[in-house]
Every structure is written in structure tokens, then in C-alpha cells.
């Protein structure tokens, strides 16, 4: 289930060997971490997710004043439902496309490294050890774990989306096509479906808007935003700091140079930051509003 390694792109720095200035000054060199396809997938995921959360949580908290005001602004209940269903279709298509790509790479291209190993998103024994040593580091009892390509919390985020897509998707489509579904399943499933849909969505929204935002963007070291998912590239220093094991491994294998990249286009960085900050802001507002209405 691993996203592919970024395609090899020729960049000015690619021909030269890595300078490795021993961390004295931030390296000006960049390395690819995410392919354009992966970035596009994430962009599709977070934009549709924000739209789905906005329209869905409005219904979930329909007795709240902010929800009623938002529903009026959007253009009424029918508009809300239209946007919710349209975005759901886009997200479903993106999810199925992702699944198809993964299956093709595993079964047709025989990239079994997606299923097991340092480049796989499947939890490895090391992830559980990393979790333990990360907690020891939190408490000042040991060194910081040396993470590989994907950290355990990144894998959790990835599989949480899988679980969420299944639960929210199946329950959502059940309600959308309720008369058809009730031919196959008892009506009590529809009762369960709304509860599952709403609670899982709330879990997802709260998780993304608090834990994911902190772990990925707001924590010291990444604050205020980690742009790697927008530009696809990180600096050498970031690479060494955040994924030391992958960095060392690739260096030892002599494959580091393959990933060298030039800086992203300035306009692209600015656009990524604007969109990213907007997403974080919307997420925070929704988090505060829903928490206020929930408690």
C-alpha cells in the first residue's frame, strides 16, 4: 500500500554528489519525498474532506446557531446535500483510483516492497519499537528514535483514512440509496448507519484538526506548516532530521542522488502555503465550533 517513490526527475543538482555539509548551515539542496500523484491525492483528499466535514458537521450539529447560519449561507439544505454528495463522489473516485494503483503495482508490477519492508505503509515491528522509544524520549529516558520513510503516526493517519473511508463511505451510500439498501438489509441498519456515519466523521474531523495538524504541521520542528505534501520536497536537513534511517539507508545504497531536486517554484510554494493555511484555519474553526456544541 505504499505510495510510489517519486519518479526520477532530472534537476540541476542531480548530477553532482551530495555535498553533506555536516549540518552546519541549512542545506540549500532539496530531495523528493512525494510524487506529483501522491500530492494530488492528498490535495483531493483534504479539499473534499474539508467540504464534507463542513457540510456534514452542519447537519450533525444542526441545532447550533453557527450550523443554521452556515446552511443559509451555502444556499439551504438542498445545496448542502448537493455539495456533500458531489464531494463524496469525488473522494470515492480518488480512493478507488488509489486502490487500483496500489493493486496494479503489487500484482502486475510485483512491487512487493509495498506490502512489507522499510518503504511499506504496513505496520512493521520497528514501528512498535519506535512508538516505545518515542515515549521514552518524551520522558527524557532515551534518544529520539530514528524513523524510516514513514513514521508510525504517519502510518496511523494513512490507515485511519482507510478505516474511515470504509465506515463513512458504506454508511453514507447506504443512506443515500436507502430504499435500495433496505432490500438487502433490515431497516435497523439505516439507524446504525447514521450513527456510524456521524460519529466516525466526528472522530475523523477532530483527529485531523487536532492530532494530525499538530503531528504534521504545528509541532516544533514543523511549525507553522510542513510544505512537503504541497511541494513534494524537503531540505536535506529536514530529511536527515525527520527520516534519518531512510536518509542513511539511501546514502549507503548510493541512491540519494536519484532524489535530488531543485527548489520548488516560488509561486507554487506561496500557493501551497495559502491553501494549506486556509485548510488549517477552516479546520481549527470547525474544531472549536464542534467542540463548543458537543460539550
Amino acid at each position, binding site marked *: 500500500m505504499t505510495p510510489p517513490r517519486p519518479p526520477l526527475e532530472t534537476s540541476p543538482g542531480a548530477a553532482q554528489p551530495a555535498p553533506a555539509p555536516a549540518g552546519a548551515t541549512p542545506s540549500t539542496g532539496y530531495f523528493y519525498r512525494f510524487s506529483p500523484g501522491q500530492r494530488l491525492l492528498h490535495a483531493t483528499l483534504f479539499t473534499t474532506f474539508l467540504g464534507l466535514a463542513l457540510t456534514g458537521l*452542519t*447537519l*450533525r450539529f*444542526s*441545532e447550533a446557531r453557527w*450550523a*443554521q447560519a452556515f*446552511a*443559509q449561507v451555502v444556499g*439551504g*439544505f*438542498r445545496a*448542502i446535500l448537493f455539495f456533500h454528495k458531489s464531494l463524496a463522489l469525488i473522494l470515492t473516485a480518488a480512493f478507488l483510483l488509489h486502490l487500483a494503483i496500489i493493486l496494479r503495482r503489487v500484482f502486475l508490477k510485483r512491487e512487493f516492497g509495498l506490502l512489507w519492508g522499510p518503504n511499506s505503509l504496513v505496520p512493521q515491528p520497528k514501528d512498535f519499537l519506535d512508538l516505545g522509544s*518515542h*515515549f521514552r*524520549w*518524551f*520522558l*527524557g529516558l532515551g534518544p529520539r528514535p530514528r524513523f524510516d520513510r514513514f513514521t508510525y*503516526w504517519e502510518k496511523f493517519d494513512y490507515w485511519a483514512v482507510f478505516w474511515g473511508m470504509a465506515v463513512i463511505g458504506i454508511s453514507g451510500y447506504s*443512506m443515500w440509496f*436507502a*430504499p435500495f439498501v*433496505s*432490500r*438487502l*438489509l*433490515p*431497516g*435497523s*441498519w*439505516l*439507524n*446504525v448507519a*447514521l*450513527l*456510524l456515519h456521524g*460519529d*466516525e466523521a*466526528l*472522530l475523523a474531523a*477532530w*483527529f485531523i484538526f*487536532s*492530532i494530525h495538524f*499538530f*503531528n504534521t504541521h504545528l*509541532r*516544533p*520542528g514543523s511549525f507553522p506548516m510542513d510544505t512537503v505534501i504541497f511541494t513534494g520536497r524537503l531540505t536535506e536537513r529536514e530529511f536527515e532530521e525527520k527520516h534519518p534511517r531512510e536518509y542513511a539507508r539511501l546514502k549507503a545504497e548510493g541512491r540519494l542522488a536519484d532524489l535530488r531536486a531543485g527548489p520548488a517554484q516560488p509561486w507554487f510554494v506561496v500557493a501551497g502555503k495559502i491553501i494549506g493555511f486556509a485548510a488549517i484555519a477552516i479546520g481549527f474553526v470547525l474544531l472549536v465550533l464542534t467542540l463548543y456544541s458537543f460539550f
Partner: protein
Amino acid sequence: MKALRAGRAGRGLALATISMAWLLPLRAQTAAPSAAACLACHSQPGIADGQGRNLTIAPASFAASVHGALGCPACHADIQGFPHKLPVAKVDCAKCHAGEGAKLKTSVHRIWRAASLRLVMRNLDSPACLNCHGNPHAIVPVNNPRSPVYPLNLPRTCGACHGNPQLAKKYGLPNVYSMYVDSIHGMALTRDGLLVAATCTSCHGAHQILSHNNPRSPTFRARVPATCGKCHAGIAAKYLRGAHGQALRAGVASAPVCISCHTAHSIASVRTTAWQLHTTAQCGGCHSQRLATYRDTFHGQVTALGFAVTARCWNCHRAHEILPASNPKSSIAPANLPATCGQCHGQVPRGFISYNPHADPRNRRRFPGLYYTARFMNLLLLGVFTFFGIHTVLWFSRSISERTAKRGRT
């Protein structure tokens, strides 16, 4: 004539009248005077008594009034000749209108009048009759559009007091006039000009208006369905067949009547979104558990958001002929559910109607699937946020302390 108006006391007025009489070809007489004789003086514009009351009578309108044919002495029996003594005795309408007089005596208006209205009403000494019927010398039949008690004019007549905010405040009366005028009855009357539209007297009666606490009053709670049923006969019959009507008949004091849901004066069109959404809370006022489980459903979420596009209580339970599911005639009886759900959902399969629109995730016995799903989701939510909450707090504090340590070193 200015001189007459300026008369300060009874005696001054009498003198003035007499002096005026000399100018007219009239002689003092002892027989009951004819209307023409009285009008010789009283048709003069601007004549007033010592208290400033207008004593001018328009001959034409008096002749056209219901009392025109009776002449003056029929009411002013104490006036035997000219000049007449002052003050003139108060006219007692009940002498002829005995039935109305008797009714008025027991009505709230008579009681209130005695108690307090003396302080606020103009024409204090005039009969209570005239407060509604207007100028005593120009009273026209109730079906005459000029009558203050003609249906189209009546609300304004009653509203002179019941739409007076100061009066309402002073006596703790609701300002029912504005409520009524904005209601569907008021709209039908003022906008559409319908004579059949309910006005004040349609519900309260005219002369014998009784407090709604009085069991004989048409606005007494238990009698409300019969009162509304005078016009809304079909709805009243349905209501009486339904659970609420049955409860009322069985003597249940809290059983809702028409006004419990529709209000008494601000009755809105049931087609307005505001009213359609408002009724849900209205039903939930008594059926609170049902409202809570309804709010947990898609139906309830959409209506709470402010859109009356999904089912509300009475779309499924009916508005008036509300019957329990155990009654085969009920709209929610199992055999009738496909039709009831089908109102919105079209042809629905059998499984669809086993959906419960009031499922309670806290009820393990009746909804085990929902109950355990809710418990699982709660645990999942709690588990994820407990774990990652601790994870995040520890991570954050460690990062901060490491940064400050690093900064300390450099």
C-alpha cells in the same frame, strides 16, 4: 354656537339652550316631543354639555339608524317637554334589549368595567353597549358595513382596548389585537375581506364574554374543540377521533386542544415554514423523549437546521387524527407504514419500514445493534483521543524543553 360649547355647568347650558330656543319657532310643550322637535336644537353642530360631550345628532344618520323609527322618547323617556331637566337620565338599553343586557351583566366586560375600566375608558357614563356599538344615534344593523361590529370592522373595535399597549400593560392583558391581525384569521378578514373569517366574537361570543377559566365560556379549555369546530367541523371530528381528542373526552386535563398547538390568537397558516418547524417543538413540549430521538435522525437534523423538507411529527403521525400504532386505523400501524413512508420515499420495500425513526441508542433492549455501535464508537473516540492526547502533550513539552536547552547551550 360657540357660546353653547363654552357652557361650564348644567345650569349654564340650560340657560344657553333656553336662550337659543327663543330664536326658533317652538313653544314649550308638555307632551312627549317628536324627533323633529328635539333635533331642532340637537342637530346644531358643536353643542356640548358641561363635560364636553358632543350632543350634536345628525338627523339623517339618526333617521337611517335602527332606532330612527322609534324617535327620541323611546330611549329618553324622562324628557317630557321642552325645556327638559338636566341632567338627562342615563339610557338603559336593556329596557328593550333585555337578553343582551342580562348577558352583558355576567360578562367580563361588566365586571371589569365595575372594577377598573372606569379609570381609563372614555364616555365613562355611557352604557357599556356604546363602547362597541358606537354613536347611540347612528346605530346600524350588524350586517351594515358602517357598523363598528360589522365583521370586517369588529377587530378594530375590540382592538381599541385590546390593542392598546398601555391598557394591555396596565391590566396584564395580552396585546391580542396585533396577534389576531397577523394571524390567518386576521389575514383572511383584513386582506381577503372574508365575512366567514373568524373574528373576536366568533370564539368569544358577543355580549356574554366569559373568562376562559369559566367552564361555561366557549374559550374554556375543554370547550375549545367545539368552538373551533363551529367552522372547522371536519378537523374537529378528526381531532375527537384521535388520541388527543379521546383523552380530552376521557377528562384528561392536560390533553391538548386546538389552541395548544395552533395558539389562540397568533394562528399561523400551516403552510408557512416557520409554523411547520415550530410544531415539532410544540409536540416535543409533551413528547420530550420522542423529540430527542427524532433529533438524532436525519429527519430531525434537517428540520433543526431550519428546513421543513424532511418529515416532521405530523407528516407521519397525522395532525388531528393521531392514533397509536396499535390501532389499525393509525397512520403508523404496521400495515399503513408503506403508505405513510411512501408519501416522501415513494414505493418502499418491506425492509425500509423496519427503520425506526425514533431509535434510541441508549435502549439496549429494543435497539441492541444501535446500542453496541454507539458504545463501540464512544470507546473508539475516547481511546483514540486519550492515546493521542497524551502523545501530543508529551511530544510538545519535550520539544519545548529540548529547544530551550539547546538555546541555553548556544
